[in-house]
């Protein structure tokens, strides 16, 4: 988890070209000690190269454009014009890639749903030897829900606590437990309430109690707590 988080920080900073600290700024390749470190065509930033990335008079709202060096390319083009700008620490969540979902489902519900194996195209398979940042869409998310539902049917198939229709008390307990397990964090009250609504109200037309719990389980697995990292 910690390594994953560190990797995420590194990759996010690389992608967005922003650094909150001088040590991880990939753009500041200085020359010999004492040199300005200016590369050909490079225009130094606004003198905000102090460690931590915050120079005199900086505010908490500073973004990459305030901290990073400017680079001018051929024909006077601005080489960082298309660089995504961002506040440090924001927009850290990323969609889990399809390749990880089998293991993820197995980790939380001990099932790798068969439908997942035949759904690569729905999630958009990457070209060979190439990595593409995963992006969700209507079809991939509905497919994800179907996959989760299939897995949850197995997850709720035998345990006695899923043999009875969800009650307010049971839904509150099971929602909190599933959310904690699937998301690896303690859920908030509003999240538990949203889950309870699915269990008690939204799935009421389903006559099989286990399928009602499976819908509830699948809903939690389709929330960003599981679909993103």
């Amino acid at each position: 988890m910690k390594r994953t988080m560190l990797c995420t920080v590194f990759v996010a900073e690389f992608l967005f070209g922003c650094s909150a600290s001088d040590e991880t700024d990939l753009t500041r390749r200085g020359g010999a000690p004492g040199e300005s470190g200016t590369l050909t065509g490079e225009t130094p930033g606004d003198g905000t190269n102090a460690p931590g990335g915050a120079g005199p008079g900086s505010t908490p709202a500073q973004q990459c454009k305030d901290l990073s060096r400017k680079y001018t390319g051929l024909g006077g083009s601005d080489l960082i014009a298309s660089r995504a700008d961002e506040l440090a620490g924001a927009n850290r969540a990323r969609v889990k890639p399809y390749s990880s979902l089998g293991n993820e489902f197995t980790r939380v519900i001990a099932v790798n749903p068969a439908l997942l194996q035949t759904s690569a195209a729905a999630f958009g398979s990457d070209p060979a030897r190439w990595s593409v940042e995963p992006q969700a869409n209507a079809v991939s998310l509905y497919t994800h829900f179907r996959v989760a539902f299939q897995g949850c049917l197995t997850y709720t198939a035998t345990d006695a606590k899923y043999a009875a229709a969800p009650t307010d008390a049971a839904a509150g307990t099971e929602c909190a437990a599933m959310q904690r397990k699937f998301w690896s964090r303690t859920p908030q009250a509003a999240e538990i309430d949203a889950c309870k609504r699915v269990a008690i109200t939204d799935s009421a037309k389903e006559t099989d109690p286990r399928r009602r719990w499976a819908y509830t389980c699948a809903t939690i697995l389709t929330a960003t707590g599981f679909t993103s990292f």
Partner: protein
Amino acid sequence: MFTKKDVSRRLFLKGAASAAGAAAALRLPGGQFERSAFAQQAEKSAVLVVYFGGGYNALFPSADSFLGAGTFGVNNNNTLNLGNGLVVDRSFDVFPAIAKQRMATIGVRHGSSDHGEAQRLNFSSGTRSAVLMLASMMGGDAAIKAANVGPQNIPGPTTPEGGVSLQRITDMRATIAALGGAQDPTIPDRDIAAKALIGAEAMSQNAYAASPKSLTSVREGLKASIETLQKPVRPFNFTEMATAYGLQATVTGVTDDFRTKMLAAELMVLAGANVVTAPTRFDWDSHGDRDGSAVRQRMTTQILPALSTFVNRMMAATDRNVVVMMLGDFSRSLPGSDHQPNLSATIIGKYVNVGTTGKVGANVSLPAGTPSVGGMWGMAAAAVKAPAAITAFGGNPHGALIRP
């Protein structure tokens, strides 16, 4: 942010869809489908944008520009005069007669010979997505109003417009399931599934707030998925559709096989999408193709068979107005088929007049005063009779190419 207003809006959409019966969806009953019966309704418009990654040689939309010098291998035997000054490559003869009577070339003087910049310009209106602006302003009640078919994405901005986001379609079986479900006990009940996804959406609000940009695709995808599940289901004959494009009904992935892209495009048009984009691979950056043989061969074998099938089927639907646009980064310059900082696009549609505002000079240039990208999208908006979009794009400077 999820609010009660959003819930009310969804219920309204569901009710409106049920009342109007305008949305189309698909059913997969044991692999077989029933042919749908379209109800009497107002003409439904849609735009298919075929984008040639790397460029769109002007020998196709402006063939006569090269007759004099025979550049790009153009001669009297491989050109097709459609009248009113429009002469195209003879490979376009594969289109049905009605399409050739409704075809025009549009000049786009965007001024860029850089792939990235030209691609961005072609799909932008300022900082906004031209595709999504058009899709939003065309209205309708489809859950997915803008779709991109295949493994490639269109360039340019993709920020949603008016609640319309661009949804990728990469698997038709999964799309069919989302649009109409299947007779399979493991398939969730559509009504419950829609409510369950609303629940998932509610559980995701904190994450959205912390990552409003990086989770955009999740936020917009869930929203579109919910709305899709709330639409009524109607049966379609996927086997018949696949056969028309020369595909087996078991082929459902949308790949670089252009037939699958056109099949998926038809699927989404019939499901109510306003704009469908079908970008190709970056195969059309045809440096060195001085006689045009490479692009002709690629167009003839890879693109036109499926595209002409799509045009033929869509133009035969009397209750629809489906416009097809063909464009690329830019035209190819002389002598080496390199980058020309302007583009001549092809447009086909029920309300398009035969003619051209994109006839290039012998040196592939367009005259000063030729409209830029906004004019192209204004023309597209005019072709689908979307007045709000015409205004948003700054009007249609190609008015002579529109039939009343």
